[in-house]
């Protein structure tokens, strides 16, 4: 399990930390793209209060069971609840924001 980035600049009024899990299968183009897209979105909208866990199923195949991962890449918003699941390379920012329930004006 790779942990990328870290919590930065937690503001007092919004102490909530977003924990996002990105399931990938090796360094496939889709995976790489998804990670790139996710990072960009997080930087724009969740600067300083997010954590991305990248889980490579090729290395940890047993982890696919827990979150019922069939498609890769799959992004899971673990925190804050409720859990949401987004599959795909996250190329459509608007859809990702809707899926994560992130309002563009949040950032």
């Amino acid at each position, binding site marked *: 399990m790779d942990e990328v980035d870290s919590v930065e600049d937690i503001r007092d009024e919004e102490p909530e930390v977003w924990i996002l899990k990105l*399931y990938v*299968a090796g360094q*496939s183009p*889709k995976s790489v*793209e*998804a990670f790139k*897209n996710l990072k960009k979105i997080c930087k724009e909208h969740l600067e300083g209060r997010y954590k991305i866990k990248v889980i490579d*199923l*090729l290395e940890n*195949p*047993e982890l*696919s*069971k827990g979150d*019922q*991962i*069939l*498609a*890769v*890449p*799959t992004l899971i918003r673990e925190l804050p609840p409720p*859990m*949401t*699941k*987004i*599959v*795909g*390379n*996250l*190329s*459509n920012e608007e*859809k*990702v924001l*809707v*899926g994560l329930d992130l309002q563009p004006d949040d950032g």
Partner: protein
Amino acid sequence: MVNPLDDSDNSGLPKARTGIEGLDEITNGGLPEGRPTLVSGQAGCGKTLLGMEFLVNGAREFDEPGLFVSFEETEEELKDNVDSLGFDLEELSDQDKLALDHIRVVRSEIEETGEYDLEGLFIRLKHEIERIDADRVVLDTIEALFSGFSNKTILRAELRRLFKTLKGLGVTAVITGESGDDSLTRHGLEEYVSDCVIHLAHTESSNVYTRRLRIVKYRGSSHETNEFPFLIDENGFSILPVTSLNLDYKVTQERISSGITELDDMLGGEGYYKGSSILVSGTAGTGKSSLCAHMADSACERGEEVLYLAFEEASDQILRNMRSIGIDLERWVDAGLLHFQAERVSMYGLEGHLAVIHKLVNELEPELVIIDPINAYLTGGKELETKTMLVRLTDFLKQNGITGFFTNLSSADGTSESTEVNISSMMDTWILLRDIEQGNERNRGIYVLKSRGISNSNQIREFLITDDGVKLKDVYVGPSGVLTGSARVIQESKDRTEKQNIEEEIERLEIELERKKEAMEAQMDLLKAQLQTDRMETKKKLEELKTKREQVDLTRQELSQIRNADKQDPQGS
């Protein structure tokens, strides 16, 4: 079990035995090994069970571990569902012979954006397959994916890749799919799985459901193309391989008793042929079941196993009723020779019932199967289906050298039903029981309508059910027709009286004649005596006359001598 196709498959295609009764026969050895097989069918038709049995049998009997991937039921549900079939999935999975994996696909949880693939699923499958070194995989039902992902293009491409991957892994896979209205599967899975496609159907006719299985295709292998009825019961799946109606069974010269001496006499003195089909038809209460009981009793006495399928009475009732006519069948039940199976046909449907019989026969290996009555099938199916089913049944029994004894309840008006005529052609012996109504009473008549290979009696015999079983009597055939029952008894006694009268008359006439003769003879003696007297008197007179004449002649000679007269004619008057 009879498998006429044993040696017909020489394709050399490696096959994975399913261990499911009947399925290996109709697929000529099992599913294509190392390839995916599609099992399609409506909801509740037994797809999951077929898959599960394939895996459990593989794990238990063929040392092939299996992975069951369920997209619908959870592991717990699966375990509970097959628990009643005696499949202990817990134990098998503890031994790593079986793995259950529930993959939940919930659409509402998933948002899609951009490209993706199903590598997650692939990795999961591979991981599980490798973990237990599975040789068999079931995906039940993979179509659930279609409800989980909206991008059909990706999905189709991924399914194609999935089946390729499975093939690459060399596992024998069973993929189930729900059938659509006009297609084998709703999402056209058959387009990806082309090696072997099996279709399960659940048809309804007259409120009776019948399960059927058909092999739609099997690449590189011969297979049966018919629809086969199958059954799901406490032992799981069983398919009845109804073969094409071949008539190449061996026949025997051996004869078996009907259990009724007089009936044996009517059948050429030796009874029925062993392994033949016998139909007994008659109206209600003509004693069909009694004939069955006799048949069963005599078979058990010979130490043969008997399967008695009763569709209208409970076995206890049959035992009680037969005891009342002096046939103790209970001892044979206790001895394990006689097996009753009493239930309504509608429980399984026609085909299902055939499967039940098939199964029972294979289990018990009886030498006699009694079905009382076959009409029960009519309530469960249509006429043509009934006939087809009976053809299959008689065929199956004959192929196994089992004597089939069927009864048929015919309508009261005495005419044979068309079904009766239809099925009679399959029967070797047809015995008719008839009601003969006469003089305010109803009596039973029995006759052998036909009996192939036996010179049977053409007589109608009266059929009596006594405390000591069935007895046959000659019916009275006289100038006023056929008489039975008390009419026969009365007529017989009337006949006896009449006969006696005639005999007396004859005697009287004979005596009279004798007396006349004697009288005449006496008269004749008298006449003879008179004649004798007359003759003697006449003789005497003649003597006297002759003497007289001589004297006259003498006198004349003397006179002429005396007178010295001329010579005269000596005969002179």
